C-alpha cells in the first residue's frame, strides 16, 4: 500500500486536531486535540521513515511521545489548578485579560 496515504491520514488527523482546538471550549478537550495533532505528526514521521528507509523518523516519534507525556504533566497541572480556582474548565471563562 502506498505510504503516501498515511501522510494524507496524518494531515487529516492534524487538521481535525487543529479544528478541535479552535472550536472546543473545555480546556481538557482542547488539550486532547493538541495531543491528537502531535500524534498526527508521529504518524507522518513514521511514514516518512518508512519511505526513506532510515530510522530517524521513528526515533523522533519516540521523543515526541516523551515530550507529549511531559506536556501532559505540566498541562494538566495548570488546567486543574485553573479548574479548582474557577470551578470551570472552559477556556473562554478565562478572559480576565483583554484589550
Amino acid at each position, binding site marked *: 500500500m502506498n505510504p503516501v496515504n498515511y501522510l494524507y491520514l496524518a494531515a487529516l488527523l492534524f487538521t481535525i486536531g*487543529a479544528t478541535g482546538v479552535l472550536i472546543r471550549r473545555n480546556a481538557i478537550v482542547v488539550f486532547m486535540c493538541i495531543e491528537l495533532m502531535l500524534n498526527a505528526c508521529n504518524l507522518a514521521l513514521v511514514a516518512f521513515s518508512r519511505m526513506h528507509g532510515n530510522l530517524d523518523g521513528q526515533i523522533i516519534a519516540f521523543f515526541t511521545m516523551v515530550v507529549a507525556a511531559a506536556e501532559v504533566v505540566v498541562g494538566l497541572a495548570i488546567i486543574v489548578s485553573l479548574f479548582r480556582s474557577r470551578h470551570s474548565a472552559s477556556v473562554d471563562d478565562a*478572559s480576565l485579560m483583554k*484589550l
Partner: protein
Amino acid sequence: MENLIALLIAAPLLGAAVLLVGGRRLDAVGHWIGTALAAASFVIGLVLFADLLGRSADQRTLTQHLFSWIPVAGFQADATFRLDQLSMTFVLLITGVGSLIHLYSVGYMEHDERRRRFFGYLNLFLAAMLLLVLADNYLLLYFGWEGVGLASYLLIGFWQHKPAAATAAKKAFLVNRVGDMGLAIAVMLMFATFGTFAFGPVFSHVGDASEGRLTAIALMLLLAACGKSAQVPLQSWLGDAMEGPTPVSALIHAATMVTAGVYLIVRSAAVFNGAPGAQLVVTVVGAVTLLFGAIVGCAKDDIKKALAGSTMSQIGYMVLAAGLGPIGYVFAIMHLVTHGFFKAGLFLGAGSVMHGMNDEVDMRKYGGLRKYMPVTFITFGLGYLAIIGFPGLSGFFSKDRIIEAAFAKGGTEGWILGGAALLGAAITAFYMTRVMLMTFFGEKRWQPDENGTEPHPHESPGVMTIPMIVLAVGSVFGGAFFSIGDRFLHWLEPVTGHSEGNSPLSAWTVTAATMVCLVIGVAAAWAQYGRKPVPVVAPRGSLLTRAARRDLLQDDFNHVVLVRGGEHLTRSLVYLDHTLVDGVVNGTAASVGGLSGRMRRLQNGFARSYAVSMFGGAALLVAATLLMRAV
C-alpha cells in the same frame, strides 16, 4: 578739514546718548545739553561752510571715510560721508533751524516732566537727518532715512499716554516703511545693475544701464520720496503727525525731514535724468499733491492740520520742480530752504498761540489774538506773507521760479503743470489768509473749557519768541538774498546741474499771473472770513469741504481697504493655521490613535480566537511561501 564732517553727526548723537542713557539725574540740565550740542553742530557746519566757500566751485566736495560698514564678497557698504554744496545747504538748514527749535522747545516743553527725553529724541533726529544728507552711498542714506523715521515715530508719539498720539506715531512709521521698501528695492536694483550703490560710481555709470532699469530705480526712489515727504498716495500720515508737540511739527514735519524726499530726488538727479518717464511721474505726483494739500488746508479748522496741509502742498511744489529735471532742481532746493524758514516760523507761531490758549488748536475758538500776543502776530504775519508769495519776500522768489520752470517744461505738460502751480498759488493765498484772519482778527471766540478755566492769551517767553523772530527775518530776506545775482543757482549748479528751459511765457507774464492769483485768493478769503464773523461751530459746508475735512476721504479708503481687509486676512489665516496646518498634524495623530483603538479590540481575551489568528497566520504563511515559489 573733512574730518570735521563726522563731528557734525557726532555732536547730536552724543547728546542723544547722554540724555537717553543718563537718566533722571540729568533732568535739570538735559535740555541745555541738547541745545548746546545742536548749536555746536551748527557751528561746525558754519566752519565747514566757510571752508567750502574758500574753495573753487569744483573743489567743493569733501569726503570722509570712517570704516568699512558691511564688507561681504562683492558687497561693500562703507561708512563714508560726502559734503558738497547740496549736503552743505541741508546741513546748515537742519542744524540752524534745529538749534532754533531746540531753543524754542526749552520754553515750550517747560512743564513736561519728560523734557529731557524730548531733547534726547530731538538730538537723535538731528544726528539721523545729518547722516541722511551726508551719506556717500544709498545704504548709509537708508540708515539715516530710517533713523529719521524712528525719531519722528518717537516724537509724534511723545505723549504716548494719548492713544491718538500713539496711533499717529505708528501710522507715520508704517506708511514710511512702505516708502522705505521702495528705497530698499532701489538699492537692490542698483546693486544688481551697477554692482555698487555708492553715489560716485552709480552716477558715473548711469550711461551703461538700460533706461528700463533706470526708470525702475527712479520709480522706487520716488516711492521712497512719497513716503517721507507725504506725497500722494502716501501722504495720509502727515496730518495725524500733528499729534506730536508743535516744535516737532515745526522741525521734522515742516522744515527738514519731510523734505528728505526732495533731497533724494535731487541727489539722484543723474538717475532721473536718464529716466524721462519716471520724471514725468514725479511731476504729476508733485502737481497732484500741491493741489491736494492746498484743498485739505482750506477745510481744516485745526490750525496745525491746516499748516500740515500747506506743508504737503509746498513740498508738492518742490517735487514738481525736482521732476522738471535740470530746469527745476535748484529751485526745488531753494524753495525747500525758504519754506524751511517760513513754515518753521509759522508752526512756532502756531505753537506760541496754543501755548497761550491752553493748547487749544481749533481756530474757530481763536480770534482777535493780535492784541494779546503781538510778537507772535508779527512774526506769524511775516511768515504768512512769505508763504503766499508777497512780492519781495522769500516765498515770492522761490515759488515764482518754480512756476516759471513748470511752464518752461514746454508742451501741453508745461501748460498743465504750470496751470496747476498757478492754481495752487491762488489756493495757498486763500487758506493762509483764512488761517491768519481766523486766528488774529475778528472778535475773540474762546470760552471756558469743560473744567471751567478761561484761557488767558498771553505772549510767550523770550526763549520762544527769539527763534520766531530769527525765522521771520529769514523768511523775509532769504529769497531775495538767494536770488539776487542767482547766488543760490551758482552755488548749487555744480552738483545738480542747471539748464534754462524755453518758457512759452516771459518771466514777467508768469509773475503777473501769480500776482493775480494771489489777489484772488486773498480776496476770496477776506470775503468769507474777514467781513462776516466766523461761526464757532463749523457750518456743514459743501460736499468738497466735508471731503476735504476728512483729508479727501483718503483715510477712509485706507481704513476700509487696508485695515479692515488686513484684519480679515490675518484672522482667517490664524484660523487656517489652527484648523488646516495644525489640523493635519493632530488629525494624523488622532487617526493613528483611532486605528489603535480598533485593532486593540481584536485582543478579546479568548484563547481560542488567538488560536484562530495563529492558525490563519500559519495558513497565510504557507500559502505565501508556496505563492512565492509559484511566481
